[in-house]
């Protein structure tokens, strides 16, 4: 394991070169023990690479590895037994894998919930609902812990009492984005895991995120895209998933919403459509563990004015000025109705003086 760690941490050597070296030499330990002369014999080895190998051997990698363990960060490589099989099957799997907490269980059905960072309130609610219900049926949720949809799905999984795994574009000990620190702590609390192919301490970089999306696609059995614009980063995850033969589902949206353009075009290209969470659960072959309730408008106990206000609201945020106009109520009647609806948790104020229905 030490040697694997050494091989994974040679500056300037990526997983492609590592695979090449391993093919020639057999194992990391053998590469380490090779003399200069032997190294030179390896096919395709350049002068630079030779120098890098030589320099790397001078490092005290054993101590570094111990430090890593002390930080509660685990390490494995594709040569080891505990390396997730799901990743072995993907093209160009990461050689190294660092994680905090647990690793994704092989047997569990894992679903990736991905989508826009700058999502709508509706999108966030859908992602969370998906997370709650899928997790309560025993699925694990894999995502990137990003703002918006990712966080919604993972919070949902936590609320639903399930496990969730985050794959990061930085070291597993770096919480990015920083505002997700509660989520980060909660994932570890609930026996989930934070995974990364980058060693601890690595700061996020734009180039790391497409690679992390590739791992998300590798770890899951299917991908659900909740909200995505036409050219969204989430579509990279989708492409990787398709490449690896995983199922892709998309939550349909209205045709004029730019945030649903990506999802709708995925559906056009043949992705599965999420008509309801329950239907998705069924398609995935999961058994619902409890009766799922759906809010039926007719069952709501509402007074006349509250009903009128509720009817005016939908999944799109609506301003109080518009409501005043549409309901023709006075300011104090309208504010009273809104306050009651908020109190009954039928609607939420998603932005200053903007209101939407709750799912």
């Amino acid at each position, binding site marked *: 394991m030490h040697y694997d760690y050494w091989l994974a941490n040679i500056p300037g050597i990526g997983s492609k070169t590592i695979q090449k070296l391993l093919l020639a030499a057999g194992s990391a330990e053998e590469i380490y023990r090779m003399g200069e002369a032997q190294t030179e014999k390896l096919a395709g080895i350049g002068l630079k690479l030779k120098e890098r190998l030589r320099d790397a051997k001078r490092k005290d990698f054993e101590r570094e590895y111990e430090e890593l363990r002390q930080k509660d960060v685990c390490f494995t490589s594709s040569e080891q037994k505990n390396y997730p099989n799901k990743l072995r099957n993907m093209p160009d799997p990461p050689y190294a894998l660092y994680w905090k907490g647990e690793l994704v269980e092989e047997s569990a059905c894992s679903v990736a919930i991905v989508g826009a960072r700058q999502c709508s309130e509706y999108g966030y609610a859908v992602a969370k609902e998906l997370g709650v219900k899928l997790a309560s049926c025993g699925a694990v949720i894999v995502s990137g812990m990003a703002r918006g949809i990712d966080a919604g799905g993972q*919070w949902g999984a936590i609320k639903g009492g399930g496990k969730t795994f985050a794959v990061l574009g930085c070291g597993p000990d770096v919480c990015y984005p920083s505002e997700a620190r509660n989520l980060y702590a909660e994932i570890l609390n609930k026996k989930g895991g934070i995974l990364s192919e980058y060693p601890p301490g690595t700061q996020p970089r734009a180039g790391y995120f497409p690679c992390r999306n590739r791992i998300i696609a590798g770890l899951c059995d299917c991908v659900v895209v909740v909200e995505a614009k036409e050219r969204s980063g989430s579509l990279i995850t989708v492409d990787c998933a398709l490449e690896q033969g995983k199922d892709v589902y998309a939550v349909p949206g209205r045709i004029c919403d*730019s945030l649903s353009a990506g999802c709708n075009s995925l559906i056009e290209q043949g992705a599965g459509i999420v008509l309801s969470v329950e239907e998705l659960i069924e398609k995935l072959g999961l058994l619902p563990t409890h009766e799922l309730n759906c809010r039926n408008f007719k069952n709501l106990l509402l007074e006349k004015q509250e009903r009128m206000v509720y009817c005016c609201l939908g999944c799109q945020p609506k301003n109080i*000025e518009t409501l005043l106009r549409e309901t023709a109520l006075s300011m104090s009647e309208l504010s009273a109705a809104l306050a009651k609806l908020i109190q009954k948790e039928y609607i939420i104020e*998603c932005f200053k*003086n903007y209101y939407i229905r709750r799912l």
Partner: protein
Amino acid sequence: MYSIISTASIQGIRSVPVCVEADVSDGMPVFEMVGFLSSEVKEAKERVRTALKNNGCTLPPRHITVNFTPADIRKTGSGFDLPIAIAVLAAMGEIKAESVKDTLFIGEMGLNGKLQPVNGILPMVAGAKRQGLKRCVVPEENVYEAQMVTGIKVCGAECLRTVLSILNGESDCGRVQKILPRDEVCEETIDFSEIHGQHFIKHACEVAVCGMHNLLMIGPPGAGKTMMAKRISTIMPPMSEQEQMELSKIYSVSGLFPRQGKLMERRPFRAPHHTISMQGLAGGGILPKPGEISLAHKGVLFLDELPEFQKNTLEVLRQPMEEKQVRLVRISGTFEYPADFMLVAAMNPCRCGYYPDLNKCRCSANEISRYIGKISQPLLDRIEICVETPRIPFRELTGRDVEEDSETIRARVVLAQRIQRERYQKESFDFNSQIPASKLESYCTLNAGQTAYMEQMYKTLHLTARSYHKILKVARTLADMEQEEKIKTRHLDEAICYRSVDKRFWNRDREA
């Protein structure tokens, strides 16, 4: 020969009486001025000497000493030229000593003896009257301002010669100057009835004025935020004479007193650009001058594009907002300017202005949370009412509906403010917005049911102690507007809609 002349200097908006003494005696021919003078006053020596020469009065080759008393305050400003000239002439025996008795002289002088207007005439003349002086001689262009003070004779003079003829009794000194109607014509009339639709914001403005709450409007570009802000001062109750005088003094000191022949009756509306400096906003400079917050005294200070203002510039607002005045301590003394204004701020919800419309908004989540983060929390804490203004649909823009005019709204505001004044007779404050936390319970009493209701709302809406207090204050104002003695639940509900800005709306981590 010795002479003494009365004049005045400005400190803050207060007038400080200053005497200019002159003595002409034998000795080395020198023109000396003493008495803690700033450089512009020191330069007066050359102006006075030349002006006197050009008016046929060459200074004798004798020892001339001019002294300014009291000697411990710094003399600044350009109004000392005339008093120096008169003092020297009196010391030379050109003017009789009794003709300058009980007379205040102020004015800057050109080399040909022509008098130039100076700033701060109004407080100086008012101060002279308090001091018991009978007459004042001011540059002709300042007459309209000096005449605002009753009970003192005002003489306008256009040059040194006129002053001399007034003093010798050759010219009528009570000449009333014609009022220049220029500014009167330019005054545009604005009214709330010009705004169509936007009933929510209009009502919020009315509530804000009733309780003198500070107001923040959030909305996309072109939603009418500035238009609304401009009209807020039109629904404020008319100013008392004392308030008018105080405001006029501030404008006089800043050289902005309008040439209209009456005190300032309209409440001011000041909208400084967001590049304004700390000194520009609070007042200051080497020669301290009132800042925008003082120019907005008794009126509206409108800060458009609030997040674009420098953070430390906005921080200076905190103390004046509490104390209703600003104290500037400089090496040359302490200056106090009144600054009792209503803060109206406007901002876009995000950089592009379209959030939360995600179809139009091009900002990343990061940019959005950074945008609101630019405003300091202590300032937001001082804003009780916050509303979001959407764009007006075309239908309403062209609507034929007759909208309420400012006068109708103002009548309601006057009533609501009177109720507050009566209630707070024995207190040190006048309006609901100023209720201190310790007195909140006695003035904003809730019954048991309402307390339980607010407790639940406190949890559902993630309120803080501060935002809860603000809701209570606004609810009190809403109750006053309906002349209700007790706060009703509907007032609380409405106050919740106006509650101050919640930074969580800009942050996507809802679960925190």
